[in-house]
């Protein structure tokens, strides 16, 4: 009796987590013209920890990642390449990660249901740039699905260089 109850708790927790995640993704997806994006920093920006979330924008000739403290800034002119990719990863943020780890103890491997429910697809934006000394950096950011191509277009329009061909995800009618 105790085991089925645990499984039900896991399923309810999963439902509660996926609903807000889907809502927020849809919200950012419909707001495509907004210049500020909620993104996750994977690695590469100076003085920004891995997995930090913040707002990404292009302003005053620079790409800016604002995560609460001093924003990380990359001058657009220093960007020499931009790549767009995608990845299927786990949604739900930190709460999702904690619940998923806890669900490993659920009986009959019922916790694996969370893997299906918390799955989310993100765009990966990779930016190659050089600092004042000429040293190469690579910043990797996870954006809501469908937003990386827009950000790439915005960066190129602001003066960034990009040798990579336009990605196939670019919708018809959009200018590179």
């Amino acid at each position, binding site marked *: 009796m105790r085991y089925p109850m645990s499984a039900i708790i896991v399923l309810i927790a999963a439902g509660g987590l996926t609903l807000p995640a889907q809502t927020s993704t849809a919200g950012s997806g419909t707001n495509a013209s907004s210049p500020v994006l909620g993104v996750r920093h994977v690695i590469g920006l100076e003085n920004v920890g891995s997995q930090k979330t913040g707002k990404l924008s292009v302003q005053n000739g620079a790409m800016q990642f604002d995560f609460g403290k001093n924003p990380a800034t990359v001058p657009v002119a220093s960007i020499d390449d931009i790549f767009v990719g995608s990845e299927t990863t786990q949604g739900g943020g930190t709460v999702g990660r904690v619940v998923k780890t806890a669900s490993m103890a659920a009986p009959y491997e019922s916790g694996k249901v969370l893997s299906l429910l918390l799955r989310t697809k993100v765009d990966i934006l990779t930016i190659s740039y050089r600092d004042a*000394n*000429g*040293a190469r950096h690579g910043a990797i950011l996870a954006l809501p699905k469908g937003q990386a191509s827009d950000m790439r277009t915005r960066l190129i329009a602001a003066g960034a260089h990009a040798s990579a061909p336009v990605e196939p995800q670019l919708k018809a009618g959009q200018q590179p």
Partner: protein
Amino acid sequence: MSRNCVVRTFGFLAALVSQFAIAQTGATSPPANKAKPPKLSASAIQIEPIDAGDVSIPPEFRFAIYERLIERVQKDGTFKKVYRSGDREAANVPDLVTLRTTVGKFKEGSQLRRELTTVTGATSVDVTATMSARDGSVLFESDLSGKVRFIGENLGATNDLAKRIAKLLRQRF
């Protein structure tokens, strides 16, 4: 009679101990004979971006390996200074060594498959790390592999690889 017995027992034990000691020496001697590569010395390292060669590997994986490697080597403190590729300050360092990494094989798995099946969907990246001196001579070369088998996103393989390369550098410097 009893004295004889004690002497025999003592003799038997002495022989047993000596045999055990010989066996132990035999067991430990091969690693002792195995030539340990000499420790190298350098005050600074320059890390070059990952060369994909002919292998199809997404750019985010290449840059993630590069960035995580720099992060790891800086954290380890094996070298006084860690320079990125293209850093002009590195030109003035006399004992600079350069690390080049070439991808040999890449297999992108699936996080979902890993979590559901636990035996399939692993992501792996095999590389050859080459360390060269300022004059271009190769100091050493090693094949390494980074993997994510169970938990975590595919990019986690780059973290595993960077950890292994940093360990190799700690052993050699």
